[in-house]
């Protein structure tokens, strides 16, 4: 898994490439904890290059989602591939997390107050 961070005004975009699973979840969790811990609580996870998410990946996202919301922000997802979306839907994540078609849509949703 590879991570790349970019900043757009008050929104941090974390582009993730590869598989979010038991072998990579710690790396993702560490990155998300660092962002949230330094006050970057408006997060967008760019999933356009993520091909798989397992239960360990879901737990990583859930932890960051709860913490960012607790601090007044949010974690949103963008460009989720159909195979990953099926797991998010089956696990109920699609019901509690905001998912956008693309990164610009997810970033601008914070400004729009969505």
């Amino acid at each position, binding site marked *: 898994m590879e991570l790349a961070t970019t900043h757009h005004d008050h929104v941090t975009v974390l582009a993730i490439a590869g598989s979010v699973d038991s072998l990579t979840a710690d790396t993702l969790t560490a990155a998300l904890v660092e962002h949230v811990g330094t006050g970057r609580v408006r997060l967008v996870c760019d999933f356009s290059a993520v091909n*798989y998410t*397992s239960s360990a990946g879901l737990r990583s996202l859930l932890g960051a989602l709860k913490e960012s919301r607790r601090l007044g922000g949010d974690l949103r997802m963008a460009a989720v591939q159909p195979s990953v979306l099926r797991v998010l839907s089956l696990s*109920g994540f699609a019901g509690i997390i905001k998912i956008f078609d693309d990164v610009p849509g997810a970033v601008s949703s914070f400004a729009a107050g969505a």
Partner: protein
Amino acid sequence: MGTNLAKSTSAQSSVSLVIGSGSVKCAAAIGVASVLREAGIRIERVVGCSGGALFATLIAMGHDDATARDMTLRLWTQDITARRNNRALLSALAPKLMGFKASRFGLRDDSLINHRLQEAFGDARIEDLQVPLHITATNFMDGELVDLSRGPVTSAIRASLAIPFAFAPVELDGQLLVDGYVSDPLPISVAIKHGARVIVAVGFESPMMEQIGSAGRFAMQLSSIMSNNLLRARYAFNSVAHHAEVITIIPEFKKRIRLFDTDKVPYIIDAGAQAAREQIDYLRRLLDVDGAAGARVQ
């Protein structure tokens, strides 16, 4: 290729396999099990629910793909639900006159499915199978999931397949049992409870109907809605609660699969194998890491 995969995989490599409800679609698990075997990954335990119970049993018995496919083709045909149970229908319409009994209420005659199960599994007992097997059903009186890990295979499968309204419940060890999907359509919790670390879960959502032109279809649609919501709720909890890994395999079917599309079994098995192959590299790396961590603890 299979030999190379097997050689490079840790001897400790094993997973628990959970097969959810989904009628004939559950045959995909045969393809999943085949790919796991090919990769040298042992199935330490198998859990099956409803249609999944049938295929979990075939896997626990150690049948190869061809045998499992042939048994499915003989067992799961449309005529098992063809005959009506008129007495049950009359007892539903006139309960006082005909004497309604929950233990006998099923609108389809179950004599053929009982015969087929007996023919396929005879007097086999769950505790004697090659791989530890758990078949899940639901206690009709309190709604709890029942984990059947001992006793006759045929009764357990029949209980797990007691589709509400279609087949009568099964009385087993003092409990009245109905279909396992009513309590959990993908019983990952059973594998977690028995100490599984890496769980491979093969699950399916119930299909929604586009046209509802009868009371029967109305009831089926309601059942699908409820079971899908239950599936998601239980799956979400189990995914978050489990300390290790749940690898979910949801085969993608490009063809529409109906309840008794037995002729599509070979295609369904292939789709399961294909979906498993997409996960196998990750699974092998995970098991290698898991095995190394286990060795350090010892």
